[in-house]
Each structure stands twice: as C-alpha cells, then as structure tokens.
C-alpha cells in the first residue's frame, strides 16, 4: 500500500481505490445498482471483476452484498426438499405445455 493509499485509508475510513486501479473502480451507486445482477452472474455493461473489486474494497457497500447473499441462502435453504406451491406448480406446468405446443 503506497503512502497516499495509507493516507486515503486514514482519512476516509474505507479502502476505496486500494487494490484496484482508479480507472477500474466503479462508484458505490453503480455497485449497489447491480447487486442482483452480480449475484445472478448476469451483469450488464460492467465486468464481474470491477463489481467484485468494489465490494472487496468498500466497507460501506460490502454489508449490503452480504445481506443479499444471506437472504438468497435462506430462500434456497427453505426451498431445499420442498417444491413450489401446488398452485404455482400447476401454472408453471400450463406454461411449459403451452411453450411446447
């Protein structure tokens, strides 16, 4: 970490721009706007590495990503061994049958 980076860390309280070149670092607003797409692996117009670099470095944005992950883990856990509600399953089967027709 360069002297300037240490100064940044000291005065901002966050590791912004540390570990990534300034040109690759995206702003908080952009990172937070693509949290869902990042977790889905379907990012539009920005690379996975750029978004990951932001969350790795930004102490204020990372907790938001962590909570979204915890939320999705809870849904997946709840759905393990259980299937979609019967009404929804019937509707999905209808849609699949229509798509096949």
């Amino acid at each position, binding site marked *: 970490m360069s002297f*300037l980076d240490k*100064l*940044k860390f000291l*005065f*901002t*309280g*966050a590791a*912004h721009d540390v570990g990534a070149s300034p040109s690759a670092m995206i*702003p*908080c*607003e952009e990172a*937070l*706007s*693509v*949290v*869902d*797409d990042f977790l*889905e692996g*379907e990012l539009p117009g920005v690379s996975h590495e750029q978004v990951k670099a932001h969350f790795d470095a930004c102490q*204020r*944005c990372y*907790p*938001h990503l*962590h*909570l979204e*992950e*915890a*939320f*999705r*883990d*809870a*849904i*997946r*856990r*709840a*759905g393990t061994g*259980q299937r*979609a*509600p019967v009404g*929804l399953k019937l*509707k*999905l089967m209808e*849609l*699949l049958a229509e*798509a096949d027709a």
Partner: protein
Amino acid sequence: MFTICRNVFLRGRERRQRHDEIVTETVGQDGPGPNPVNPVWVSVLGVDPEGDFFESIVDEHIMQAIDDLPEEYRMAVVLSDLEGLPYADIAELMEVPVGTVKSRLFWGRMQLQNVLYDYAVEMGYIAARTETDE
C-alpha cells in the same frame, strides 16, 4: 501535504455522504429506479449486519411468505431463486421482457425481505431499530 490531506478527507466525506444518500433515498413506484437498496436493509445493518436472523426463520415461514406474494412476483422469485433459471429463460416462460423479469424480481424480493424482517422482529430474532439508534 496539508492540502493533499485536506482534499483526501473532503473527498472521503463527500463519498460517505453520497453513499448515505444512495441507501436512504425513497424507492420509486415504477421500478428499482435510482435506489437499488431495500430501505429495510438500513435497519438490519444497524442491528444484525451479518444477517444472522435469517438462520432463525423456519423454512415453512419463508415458503409461506413466498406463497403469499402476488402471483407475478412469486413466479419470478421461485423460478430465479428456487429453480435457478437465468433471466432470459424466465422471460420466455413468463412471456415478458427481461427488464420486466428483473423488475418483478426486485419488487418480489423486497416484499419478501420486508415480511421476513417484520416476522423476525415480531419473534424477537432481531431487535427493531429505534430512532435513538440513528
């Protein structure tokens, strides 16, 4: 050197203020809009930043909460979060554009997060954040 330090400090403060604005702006009714963060997360971060309260919520309650979502949101959430389908496949199944799928997922998940948060507070799994915590 003093000027550099002052500028770094001012930029950091400006960035922090901007971040706070991003996460506290009101979510619009027409879609995710400029604020992609569920305001309830701001409360959760104040009392359970690791999101441990999700571990305490029984699976049946989560499934019930999903079942209670409006159909268009429920279908998008189930296909994405339970079945793991990509946006394009969900869009094809639901016969809507990918943007609509993303919007439905956003609102469905937000509704689900709010219900689960309220439930966790009610059950005492997580402390409700009060004005004095601000």
